[in-house]
């Protein structure tokens, strides 16, 4: 699905990531952890084509990201659902329309989708908030709306960058349960988080591998968690 081979990334100053090799197999569940500023978000961005590696190769669905045109990247984003820590919406449109936005921009906004949308809204527990505007939502509601928006196109991969950053413990658990459910439905899931207790709590429910970024490199964290 997503292959990184000896990838390095440097911002103007110096190298943030170096010699990263990583393969996300279909249906796998990965956690990505590391201290803040270690490059978790950068690595996530490399995984959905928002950044290009300064060295090495990133292959998304078997295509080198360097060869992708801007339209190819747009098509790719329809197969990769992304949830950010500070998720953004179109603030002038109600939540339900925001969640259905990927369908609309891909020209698939048919009436038949209405029922799926209702199911999805119920799954993330936002049915009652369907007509609210995004700025009226709480942090947890925003994260769930972002998750619903990320999966409405039925993507192959779900990338979540600190999805629990702004929410309390119960809500984190609830979000993680949704991600686990998605993984059971066959989606590849990568969750970046610095919250180790969340990882521990989740590992009981799913076969998850934990990747840790330390000293610009990635390591497979083992039993020490």
């Amino acid at each position: 699905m997503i292959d990184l081979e000896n990838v390095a990334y440097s911002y103007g100053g110096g190298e943030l990531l170096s010699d990263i090799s990583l393969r996300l197999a279909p249906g796998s569940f990965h956690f990505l952890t590391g201290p803040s500023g270690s490059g978790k978000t950068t690595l996530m961005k490399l995984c959905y084509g928002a950044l290009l590696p300064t060295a090495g190769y990133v292959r998304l669905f078997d295509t080198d990201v360097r060869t992708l045109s801007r339209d190819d990247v747009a098509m790719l984003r329809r197969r990769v659902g992304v949830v950010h820590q500070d998720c953004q919406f179109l603030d002038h449109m109600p939540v339900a329309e925001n969640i259905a936005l990927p369908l609309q921009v891909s020209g698939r906004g048919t009436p038949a989708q209405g029922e799926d949308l209702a199911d999805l809204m119920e799954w993330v527990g936002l049915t009652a908030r369907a007509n609210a505007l995004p700025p009226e939502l709480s942090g947890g509601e925003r994260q769930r709306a972002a998750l619903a928006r990320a999966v409405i196109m039925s993507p192959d991969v779900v990338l979540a960058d600190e999805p629990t950053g702004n929410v309390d413990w119960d809500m984190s658990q609830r979000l993680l349960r949704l991600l686990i459910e998605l993984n059971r439905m066959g989606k590849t899931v990568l969750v970046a988080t610095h919250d180790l207790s969340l990882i521990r709590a989740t590992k009981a429910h799913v076969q998850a591998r934990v990747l840790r970024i330390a000293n610009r490199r990635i390591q497979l964290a083992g039993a020490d968690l």
Partner: protein
Amino acid sequence: MTGGQLSRMFQRDTQADRVVPSSGFTAQLTLFAAGSMAFLAVFALSLSLAAGRLAERWGDELGRSATIRIAAPADQQQAQTAAALRILETTRGVDRARALTDAEQSALLAPWFGADLALDALPVPRLIEVIETAEGMDAAGLRLRLAAEVPGAVLDDHSRWRDPLVDAAQRLRLLGWTSIGLIAAVTAAMVTLAANAALAANAQVISVLRLVGATDRYIAQAFIRRFTLRALIGAAAGMVLGMIAVLLMPGGGDETDSFLTGLGFQGLHWLLPLLIPPLAAMVAYGATRMAARRVLEGLS
């Protein structure tokens, strides 16, 4: 912009339009600016067309006519007129020539001396109207022949005062068309500025759309549609007002009398201003498209 692109642009459901929040004030500014530009374009157009007509008329009709004035003592006038007409008959480039009758000369003088003028009581020179052929005649040669055989004849081929007027009219027409070009360029600049402002104000909207898989084309479309429509509507309103203003210009009857009263459209030329709104829309389409492409390509 092809017809297909145009119809697709207007067929797109209004849903796609809603992804970009509407901006009331800038929208109205764009409408106003497009309207003003169209209004000015109507005037520049009517100026160019009127100047063109004038240059053509002066160059054409007057250029092909000349006058010979026979100022001779009363007893010789008849003979000298006949001599001048004989010379003209054998002059190359003269299509026809005839002496004006007493009645015609009275009519010409009537505005100055009144209608009941007794022409034979005054030493009025006889006028001969000369119409040239398309090739034109050699005025200097004719003058020499007249000087030798008809001492009282003076040839006036009008070119002395006509040429600078024709030049001025042609320059005026050029200025008019230059103004129209400048108006189009300013419209493009103004739409580009407005589009850039709109794109910058909607940076979050654009990044959200990119994240959920919208193509540049889809994102640009929302902006292009809006600015094209605004330019079209604004220019249409400006054009209508401009045409009403031209229509209400006080007319001075015959256009040769005064250039100012001839400022307006004639016949099929009334249809030309109708091209202004579609042209403004095309300019806006191109300008927004380029602005959107430039901004979007700078984003990840």
